[in-house]
């Protein structure tokens, strides 16, 4: 099976769905690649090259380059979704969501509910999240907890190329608005990804490591740090299970509860500020419905409650590191 990058997996998912369904369109800044500027069409394929090649195959009627007006084109995509298209709209950095709040939270997320189930909004908003690239406070946030908080939105956070392709195809075929969050440090990782189309259902976690001593629930890029810790501790005969929920809404509560019923210990690794976060939400789940399984306090490894620092030293200290994850796991075990 061919190895493909996270970037290629996402590109392939969009291209295959555009071939399968002519109502799928791509909208966003620079998605055609430098059009409108002085550059050559498709030289670039978006800020990280994810949509490269699409303009050539599908033309400018289906790959729509927009001006830098997130408030405008996100609203346009929501309206297009209500009226028969399946837009895959790219919000370059998730940090820019602020100017589109009403279009997403009050409009797209509410249509099905407020029109008595008669409206469908098959909209995918792809966006880049996360720190680690020295991009400072306005280009490094994750913000997934904010979307997860809103009923009517589905929220997807793939950690691997295989998952990215299957989850994005699922997102495009879904009749509700889906927020698809791509971590900017993952675009170059590679693994086996089938050439054919496939879907991964929402609300189904996967275990990237299996173990019996401690459960780590980790999201997006943090899955890889958790895996590294699990692999390191395996050499000391500490058996760590890593659960990747893959989607935060819907959330696979069963997978977390089932895992802690075996391990009795839970560490949550979430690249986000801690208040009102997924980490807090998962900790509450364990407290309410998994309490009898727990043999140690639930620990959260998150960012501190501050903006993402620009200083490389501070940013490294800000992100949940493998060292902090390992310390938490050992603390759970009382060692």
């Amino acid at each position, binding site marked *: *099976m061919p190895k493909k990058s996270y970037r290629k997996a996402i590109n392939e998912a969009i291209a295959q769905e555009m071939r399968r369904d002519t109502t799928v369109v791509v909208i966003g800044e620079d998605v055609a690649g430098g059009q409108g500027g002085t550059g050559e069409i498709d030289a670039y394929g978006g800020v990280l090259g994810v949509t490269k090649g699409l303009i050539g195959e599908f033309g400018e009627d289906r790959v729509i380059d927009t001006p830098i007006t997130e408030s405008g084109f996100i609203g346009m995509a929501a309206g297009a979704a209500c009226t028969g298209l399946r837009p895959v709209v790219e919000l370059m950095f998730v940090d820019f969501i602020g100017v589109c709040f009403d279009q997403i939270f009050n409009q797209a997320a509410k249509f099905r509910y407020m029109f008595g189930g008669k409206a469908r909004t098959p909209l995918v908003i792809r966006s880049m999240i996360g720190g680690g690239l020295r991009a400072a406070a306005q280009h490094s946030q994750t913000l997934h907890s904010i979307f997860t908080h809103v009923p009517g939105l589905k929220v997807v956070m793939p950690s691997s190329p*295989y998952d990215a392709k*299957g989850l994005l195809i699922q997102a495009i075929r879904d009749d509700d608005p889906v927020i698809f969050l791509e971590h900017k440090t993952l675009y170059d990782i590679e693994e086996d990804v*089938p050439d*054919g*189309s*496939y*879907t*991964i*259902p929402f609300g*189904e976690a*996967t*275990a990237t490591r*299996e173990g019996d001593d401690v459960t780590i629930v980790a999201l997006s890029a943090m899955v890889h740090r958790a895996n590294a810790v699990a692999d390191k501790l395996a050499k000391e005969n500490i058996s760590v299970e890593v659960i990747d929920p893959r989607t935060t809404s819907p959330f696979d509560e069963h997978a977390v509860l*089932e895992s802690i019923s075996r391990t009795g210990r839970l560490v949550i690794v979430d690249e986000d500020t801690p208040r009102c976060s997924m980490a807090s939400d998962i900790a509450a789940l364990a407290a309410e419905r998994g309490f009898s399984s727990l043999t140690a306090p639930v620990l959260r490894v998150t960012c501190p409650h501050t903006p993402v620092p620009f200083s490389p030293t501070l940013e490294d200290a800000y992100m949940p590191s493998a060292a902090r994850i390992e310390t938490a796991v050992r603390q759970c075990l009382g060692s």
Partner: protein
Amino acid sequence: MTLHAVTVPKWGLAMEEGQIVHWYVAPGARVSTGDALVDIETPKITNTLEAEGPGTIRRILGAEGETLPCGQVIAVLDDGESGEPDVDDFVKNAILSLEAKHPEETTGKTLRPALVDVGSGSLNYLAMGAPTDLSIILIHGFGGDLNNWMFNQPVLAAAGRTISFDLPGHGGSTKTVGNGSIDELALRISVALKSLQLERFHLVGHSLGGAVASKVAASVPGSCASLTLISSAGLGEEINGDYLEAFVVAKRRRELQKVLESLFADPSLVTSDMAEEILRAKRLDGAEAALRQVLAANFADSRQLFGLREQIIHLDIPIMTIWGESDLIIPATHSNGLPGSTQVLAETGHMAHIEKAAEVNTLIAKHIAAA
């Protein structure tokens, strides 16, 4: 006198390295052909590597717990009485020649499945072994794919051309299965065999693939030189309908892993990686619908809706039936009253060719050689 290298085997297309789990032998041990040498773990399953010939173990070069690439020398077997310096030279040369080889050559990565057009789509197949007059055709069971033969095909290929197919709707084959009946599946395999210009062959089928193989043998008289049926469908009424349904329905790895455990007498053989790989195949567009169609066309209420016993009895070719004594999917009693030889293997479930690979390989090789 000859020294032979025992190497990390390549079981299946995806295997690139194996972990040495347990050595059954120590330097100085005398072994006979087929004796267990070492357990080797792949991400999918653990299997025992057996001695290909008699001799004395002179060197053990891979330690338990070590993970080594396919093709790496892990032991030296001596069928004579070589001197110590000769053994040392042999080891040195074996390592040098491994390093000199192109990495793809040593790991067998160049082996790739191909597609053959059968009119209503294409079938994925893997050819292995030098072309011979009679090829050995391997057909997997319901929900499987050609990788089910990963412990068998490389061994059988030593004697000649082997071809394993993905059934319609399975693996890398087109997901359309027509009405999904045994006749339909057999027709497409027959078309594929014709396209590949295979006029005479030995057929080996497992479970649903056994029924398909029987149908192919019956429908193209004179083409089939021998038939090997492993836990085959089509020989009786009973089948574990709960298993079939649970297999199709399972969407989660742990759930599927539990389901797969009923295929083996030793459930610990089912790893989560094995379950994940099958889950990934099931997620492909059209895969589940194809499984449902095949299921609906051939099985209902824990019964098989078709019978091939009459047709098989009238085949004028050598027939061998292999069954696991502890088969929970199709009962071993279905092998009763068939022509030819019947081998019921102890402590074996529905997947005899995986669970007792070496034994099954020997049986098939003998059966084919005698045909």
